[in-house]
Structure formats: structure tokens, C-alpha cells
């Protein structure tokens, strides 16, 4: 597993190429790239996004999410790269890649990691738009997405 918190723009294609070149015969790779949007949820033009992180706990939270994915799904390799700092629209925010022998585990692991990064990784996201700055909080559907992965208690 490789988990990185980076302060400069990264190239998602390069991440995917490096990830794939390190594999050992797996039959499936699923990757996801999250990109800074140019419009806010309410339609304003976004000038920049600021992703604030914690000096110790942000990376730790990402590693815990990655380890949970490996424990839960039959993935043999996982890479998570997440930006912090100031981003411009169009820049990648997050890259996730998962590899497995068969496709289902890789799809599920990437989906799981993204849902948990949204609500459980230590980041605080601010959009600076042409009409002011606004801190973004998880939406109800982000929590619903994360809760899909919750274990059910035995009845």
C-alpha cells in the first residue's frame, strides 16, 4: 500500500502508470481521480480551493482507510494520493487505484476508499468563489454513501 499526502500538483496518469508497472500478474486495476471543480454547488465560479490538513493525523487517517480497504477486500495493491494546500480548478485532488485478481474487489475497494475519504479523512475544504469563501461540509448523501459500508449487527 502506498499512501501520500502531497502539497504540489500531481499527474494522475503517471500515478496510474507507476501503480500498474508495480503489479504482479493481477487481472484488474480500478482507478479514480477527483478533480477540483470550476463551479460551486450553487453555481458560482470557483477561483481556488483550499484543502487544510492536520500535521500528523491527516496522513494517519488516510493510512487507516487504506488498511481497512485491504483488510476488507481481496486487493493486492492500493495507492492513495491526496492533495493539500491551494488548488486551482482542474487540478487533481485525489487519486485512488486498487488492483486485484478479479475486477469486483478492485471496484469495491476504490469505491470504499473514496466514500471514507469524503467523511473520515482529516481534511477541511474551502471554496473561494467570485462571491466569497465557503467551507464545505459533508452532504447527507456523502454520509449515506459512507454508511453503505457499515457492518450490520447480527439480529
Amino acid at each position: 500500500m502506498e499512501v501520500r499526502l502531497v502539497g504540489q500538483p500531481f499527474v494522475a496518469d503517471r500515478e496510474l502508470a507507476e501503480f500498474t508497472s508495480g503489479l504482479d500478474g493481477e487481472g484488474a486495476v480500478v482507478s479514480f481521480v477527483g478533480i477540483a471543480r470550476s463551479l460551486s454547488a450553487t453555481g458560482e465560479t470557483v477561483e481556488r480551493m483550499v484543502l487544510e490538513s492536520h500535521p500528523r493525523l491527516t496522513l494517519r487517517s488516510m493510512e487507516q482507510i487504506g488498511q481497512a480497504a485491504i483488510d476488507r477486500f481481496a486487493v493486492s495493491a492500493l495507492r492513495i494520493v491526496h492533495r493539500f494546500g491551494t488548488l486551482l480548478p482542474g487540478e487533481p485532488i485525489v487519486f485512488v487505484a486498487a488492483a486485484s485478481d478479479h475486477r469486483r474487489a478492485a471496484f469495491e475497494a476504490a469505491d470504499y476508499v473514496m466514500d471514507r475519504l469524503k467523511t473520515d479523512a482529516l481534511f477541511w475544504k474551502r471554496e473561494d468563489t467570485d462571491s466569497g469563501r465557503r467551507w464545505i461540509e459533508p452532504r447527507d448523501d456523502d454520509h449515506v454513501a459512507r454508511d453503505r459500508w457499515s457492518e450490520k449487527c447480527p439480529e
Partner: protein
Amino acid sequence: MKIIFFGKLRDALGDQSDLAVAEGETVAQLRRRLAELHPVASRDLLNPGVRACVDDMIVGEDFIFGDHDRVEFFPPLSGG
């Protein structure tokens, strides 16, 4: 004790402030005191979605401060 803020709280209150915390004071009591001291951010300081962190661990409202030298306040998270 150092009170360290992140995200929206940092915008309103700055990176950190120093405040004497009485031995035996709880997180809930400290929050109410901070909210009185900083009316501009009182709604966020009292928001149950804002969590306190001591020694790199999230703590509950009934956590009692001892000889700790810092507490951090985390607004709701938004990564990805």
C-alpha cells in the same frame, strides 16, 4: 493551554489561542466558555459536529482536562 483551531474555526478565530483551563474542566465546559469569549464563532464552537482532539485522539464532551498542554478543535471533515 493552547487551543488550536482548524478549518472554519481557524478562519474565525485564528490558528490558536492560549487559555487557562481549570483542572477538572470538561470539553463541554471549555466549549461553552470559548463560545462566550468568541460570540462570532459561538454557533460553530457549540456545533456537536465539531470534535475535540487531545493527544492525537478524538475525545468526548465529558473528557476531563488534566495537565494537558493543548486541545484541538476539528470542524466537520470534507476530504476527497
